[in-house]
């Protein structure tokens, strides 16, 4: 019981830190996305390999973000279930899924499955920073540029909704299909050196912001899930101890009563 209580407290303190980080990255991500959307909207003939849709049902890169540890309720299995469903779906169509697992639990899971691993990361979430996101973004974009068979890049992570609700979900990273539709207005902007150059620099920063955001969001969710799981475990243990103490005391009282009855009975028989 002390163990579960201690884990609950550790999870709460880690959770608070992680939640602050998750909130801090949002404006950065939003501003990057907005600038990208504006460039795409500017030019109706705008053309970038990251915006174009490629042929379907070939290869896909799936970034799966799970935790490094267990004992967090359904946190890890919810993420892995969604990821596995995506993989099965693509395989059924004859496609070729490639996975980038993040977190020890995801790495362990995919080690023994028949999927290709792009690169595995474990024990990075707690001390993640934007440069880790940039490194991952570069690896993913490199693979995307090199292999035209990769139709899209998706990410599976856990969205933090509230202290008691964390939702595992998937999201498309690339191609940026609905980018141009968001800002239909045309606004004459000067780009240096050129709109294409600015856009190409923006894409890695966007993907990095997205990945880093998803990692800290998932980490906050993991801590919240663990806190709830450990709180329940502590409550259950307390209840069990109470019930068992009651049963024990009853049994003890029963035994004492029994002995007394026997002594009194014995004494009476002698008279």
């Amino acid at each position, binding site marked *: 019981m002390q163990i579960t209580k201690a884990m609950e407290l550790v999870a709460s303190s880690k959770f608070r830190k992680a939640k602050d980080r998750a909130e801090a990255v949002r404006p*950065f991500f939003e501003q990057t996305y907005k*600038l990208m959307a504006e460039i795409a909207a500017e030019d109706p003939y705008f053309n970038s390999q990251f915006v174009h849709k490629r042929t379907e049902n070939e290869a896909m890169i799936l970034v799966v973000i799970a935790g490094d540890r267990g004992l967090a309720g359904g946190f890890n299995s919810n993420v892995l279930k969604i990821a596995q469903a995506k993989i099965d779906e693509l395989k059924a169509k004859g496609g070729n899924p490639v996975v980038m697992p993040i977190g020890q639990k995801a790495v362990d899971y995919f080690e023994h499955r028949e999927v290709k691993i792009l690169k595995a990361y474990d024990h990075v979430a707690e001390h993640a920073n934007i440069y880790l*996101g940039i490194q991952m973004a570069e690896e993913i974009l490199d693979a995307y540029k090199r292999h035209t068979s990769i139709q899209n890049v998706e990410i599976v992570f856990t969205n933090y909704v509230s202290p008691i609700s964390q939702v595992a979900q998937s999201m498309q990273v690339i191609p940026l299909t609905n980018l141009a539709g968001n800002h239909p207005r045309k606004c004459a*902007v000067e*780009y*240096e*050196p050129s709109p294409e150059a600015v856009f190409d620099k923006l894409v890695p*920063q966007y993907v990095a912001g997205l990945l880093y955001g998803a990692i800290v969001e998932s980490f906050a969710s993991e801590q919240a899930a663990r806190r709830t799981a450990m709180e329940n475990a502590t409550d259950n243990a307390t209840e069990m101890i109470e019930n068992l103490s009651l049963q024990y005391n009853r049994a003890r009282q029963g035994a004492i009563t029994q002995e007394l009855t026997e002594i009194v009975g014995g004494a009476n028989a002698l008279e």
Partner: protein
Amino acid sequence: MTTFHFMIVTPDKILFDGDVQEVIARTTEGDVGILANHTRYAAILKTGALTVKMENGDFRRAAVAQGFLKVSDERTTVITTAAEWAEEIDPDWAERSREDALAKIEAAQNEPDRLERANLKLQRALNRLSVSGHNTGTVQPPKKK
């Protein structure tokens, strides 16, 4: 002097959000100065110094990493992976990260990707040292052996 709304956004925090008179930034094409009512503009920022003339006329300097400068009608925004005001930079920490970057460059001689990342890290450390006034020498990364 006319002021305009300016923001510095990083993944860790919003470093600045307020009205300023002028912003001088280092883009890949050279230094640019932004005054109020500048035309809509966007450029790629290099790791370098950012100078801001505050509402009261004081100048403040900040070290910024790679990112973007964007001027729209409502505001001017710097979006960057890291930014610190000169007076808030810890020179010891910057020095340690410079040494760390040099060690990483040494270790990554045969891997272009890692070398590139280590070089960028070195540039950030040197930029912080130079902006905080603790420049220890060359701002150029060492040449590949």
